[in-house]
C-alpha cells in the first residue's frame, strides 16, 4: 500500500466538483485565564455538488462549531472557505448577506429556532420579506408552495404558532424556511436528534426527497452514526476538533481505518447483533479540549498508540482511493470492530 499526500492536481480537480471547499479551517474560543480552545483545527474537506456529507463525532468534537463557522456564525481564526469560488472568510458583512440565501442552515432544536409569537406562515415568509422577494402576493404563493413541499399544507398549519406544533412539525417548518430562497447548500446541525423515532424517519425521508427534487447539497451533522450512514454519501469523523477519517459511508462501515472510527462503530448497540455486545469499545473519556494530548489527540484512548503518536501529529492522508485517514497506524481489513477481539 502506498501512502500519498494530496497533490495539487487532485486538489484542483476536486475543487471543480466542490460547491464548498474548506482549507485548514481553525476556530478558537477564548475560555478565560488566557486559555483558548481550538474547537476546530486544520479542517479541510470538499463538499461536492449534489452530495450529502455526514459529519459525525461525540460531544465536544467540534462538529457544531464547524457548522457555525461554515455560515460564518462564529469567528474564524484562520483558514479559507470557498463557496462557489468566493472566499467566505474574507467577506464583509454586506457581501456575506448576498451569499447567505444560497447557504442555509437547519438547527437541532426547531422550537427555539423560531419566534414563538409568529405564525407558521410568517416564519416561512420572513426570508422572502427580508429579501423583498417579488410582490407580497407572490410571496404568499411561495409560502404555500414551500409548506406543501414539506407536507404541512398552509390552509391547515399556516395560521398556527410554533407552540401548537409538535417537534417534527416544527422541524418541517424550519426546513421550509431554509428552502425559501432556493439555497444550493443546506447545513443541517443535528436536525433529527430531538425527534421521536417514528417522526425522525419522516424528517429523514423528507430531506432525501427534497435533496433529490431540488438538487440540494447537504452537510449533515449528527452524533448518531446510524442516521448519518443512512443519509450520507460520504462521512467525516471528527475527534477533538480534527477530522480523523473521511470516506464513503460504505467504506466507513465496512472497513473503518481509524481506531476511533472503529471504537465508535463498536460502541453502537444495534438490533441486528443482539448476540455480542462485546465488540471493540472505546475506553476512557474525552480529554479536555483546553489541553488536548500532544501529537495524535486520540492516542490516550487508542489501543495501538506508539511513541510516534505522542510526538508527531498524523496528517489526513489517502490510504485508498477517496479514503482519508489521520493515523500513523491505520487499521486494515474487514471491520475489525465487528469481532470480539477487544472484549
Amino acid at each position, binding site marked *: 500500500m502506498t501512502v500519498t499526500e494530496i497533490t495539487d492536481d487532485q486538489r484542483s480537480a476536486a475543487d471543480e466538483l466542490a460547491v464548498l471547499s474548506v482549507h485548514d479551517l481553525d476556530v478558537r474560543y477564548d475560555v478565560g485565564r488566557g486559555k483558548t480552545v481550538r474547537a476546530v483545527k486544520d479542517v479541510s474537506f470538499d463538499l461536492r455538488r449534489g452530495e450529502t456529507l455526514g459529519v459525525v463525532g461525540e460531544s465536544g468534537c467540534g462538529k457544531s462549531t464547524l457548522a457555525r463557522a461554515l455560515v460564518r456564525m462564529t469567528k474564524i481564526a484562520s483558514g479559507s472557505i470557498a463557496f462557489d469560488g468566493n472566499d467566505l472568510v474574507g467577506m464583509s458583512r454586506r457581501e456575506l448577506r448576498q451569499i447567505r440565501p444560497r447557504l442555509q442552515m437547519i438547527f437541532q432544536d426547531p422550537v427555539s429556532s423560531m419566534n414563538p409569537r409568529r405564525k407558521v406562515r410568517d416564519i416561512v415568509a420572513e426570508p422572502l420579506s427580508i429579501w423583498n422577494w417579488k410582490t407580497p402576493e407572490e410571496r404568499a404563493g411561495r409560502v404555500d408552495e414551500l409548506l406543501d413541499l414539506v407536507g404541512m399544507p398552509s390552509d391547515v398549519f399556516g395560521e398556527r404558532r410554533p407552540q401548537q406544533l*409538535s417537534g417534527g412539525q416544527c422541524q418541517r417548518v424550519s426546513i421550509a424556511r431554509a428552502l425559501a430562497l432556493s439555497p444550493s447548500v443546506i447545513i443541517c446541525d443535528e436536525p433529527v436528534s430531538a425527534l*421521536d423515532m417514528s417522526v425522525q424517519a419522516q424528517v429523514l425521508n423528507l430531506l432525501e426527497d427534497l435533496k433529490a427534487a431540488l438538487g440540494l447539497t447537504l452537510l449533515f451533522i449528527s452524533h448518531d452514526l446510524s442516521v448519518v450512514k443512512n*443519509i450520507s454519501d460520504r462521512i467525516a469523523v471528527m475527534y477533538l476538533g480534527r477530522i480523523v477519517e473521511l470516506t464513503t*459511508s460504505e467504506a466507513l462501515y465496512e472497513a473503518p481505518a481509524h481506531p476511533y472510527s472503529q471504537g465508535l462503530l463498536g460502541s*453502537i448497540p*444495534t438490533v441486528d*447483533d*443482539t448476540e455480542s*455486545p462485546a465488540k471493540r*469499545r472505546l475506553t476512557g473519556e474525552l480529554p479536555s479540549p483546553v489541553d488536548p494530548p500532544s501529537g495524535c489527540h486520540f492516542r490516550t484512548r487508542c489501543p495501538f498508540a506508539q511513541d510516534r503518536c505522542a510526538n508527531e501529529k498524523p496528517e489526513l492522508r489517502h490510504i485508498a482511493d477517496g479514503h482519508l485517514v489521520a493515523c500513523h497506524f491505520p487499521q486494515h481489513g474487514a471491520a475489525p470492530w465487528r469481532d470480539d477481539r477487544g472484549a
Partner: protein
Amino acid sequence: MMSRPTGREGETVHPDAPQVAEKGQDALVVDNMDVWFHTPAGSNHAVDDISFALGVGKTMGIVGESGSGKSVLAKSVMRLLPARGVATGGQVLLCGNDISGLGTRKMRKHWGSEVAMVFQDALTALNPVMRVGDQIVEQIREHTPLSRSEAIAKTHRLLTEVGIPSPELRSRQYPHQLSGGMRQRVMIALALSCDPAVLIADEPTTALDVSIQAQIMDLLREEQLGRKMGMVLITHDLGLAANYTDELMVMYGGQVVERGPTKEVLAQPSSPYTEALLRASPRLANPPHTRLETLPGRPPAILGESAGCGFAPRCRRAQERCLVERPRLTLTENGESGHGVRCFYPVGTPGGHEALKINVERGTTAAGLELR
C-alpha cells in the same frame, strides 16, 4: 415474609447478596397497574392496565416513544408520582411485599435497599450542593447499621467498582465538577450502595455520548449479573434494548402493545407498531439512502379513553373492529415463550395478512389513513 435489612452484617455481605427473599420468588411483580393524571382538560390514562413480573437477575426492557407512559410506569412503581391530581390502581409486589398505596414515609425503607433508580439526568438527580461521596454515605447510613467510617470505606469501594479512578479525591467533589459519564457512574454507585434487589434505570445513557453509553451499559450489566439484581431498563433505543435485556415490553399510549423475550419480539415482531418502529429506525447494516418506512402521524400526546385500539389511527392494518373494540394482550402462536401482543390482526398471521390486503385494495384503512 422477608425481613428488613437491619439484621445484616453490613460490610461482609457485599457484593453478592441480593435482598431477594425465598427461592423462585420474583423480585418485582406489577399487577394491573393504572395511572391517571387529572388535568383541567380531562383525565389522561397514562398507564393502562400493565402487569409484569421481573425475575431475580433478569432485565426487563421497556421501549416506547415519548408520551408512551414508560417513565410514568417506572415512577409509579417507585411511588414517586405526586399525590395530587394522580390516581393509581393495581398492585406492586417488591420482594414479596405489597408496596402499593404506601406513602413517602413508608417507602423510605424500601427505597435504596430494595428498589433503586438511575435517572437520565444525573446533574439534576444528584444534590448540587453536597459532595458526591457524602450523598452515598448518607444513603448507606440511612439504610444500614454501618458506622460513618465503614460507610465511607464502602463508598470508596463502590466508586472504584463503577470505574471511578481515585475515589478518595472524587468523593470530595461536587456533581458539577464531574463529567457527564462520571456523574452517571456516581448515580449508579448511589443506586447500588444499599444492594437493591431491583434497579430501575430510566434512560440511563440517553444524555451520554455513544462511547460512554457503551461503558455505562456494560457496567450496569456487570453489576446486575454479579449481584443477581433485577433490572428494568427504560429506553427509546431499540438497539440498546436488543443488547441488554432479556424480556421486552413495547409501550404505546400507556398500554403494552407487545411483550416477550427480547430476541423474539425484535426478530419476529407481532404488533404492527413494533414492526413499524423497527422499520423506521435507520440501521447501520443497511446501505446508505435506504428508504425508511415511516409511520404516519405522531405518538399520541394524550390518549383519551378511545373505544378502540390506541394505535388504530396510525396503523396500516386497521379494520372497523379496531375502531370500536379494544384488543386485549393475548399470547401469540408460539406463546409458550410468553410472547404476547395487543392486536386483532397481528403481523405474521393470516388474519393480519388479510387485514393489510383488504386495506391496500381499498386504498385506505378503516381509520381513514390513506395507503399508497
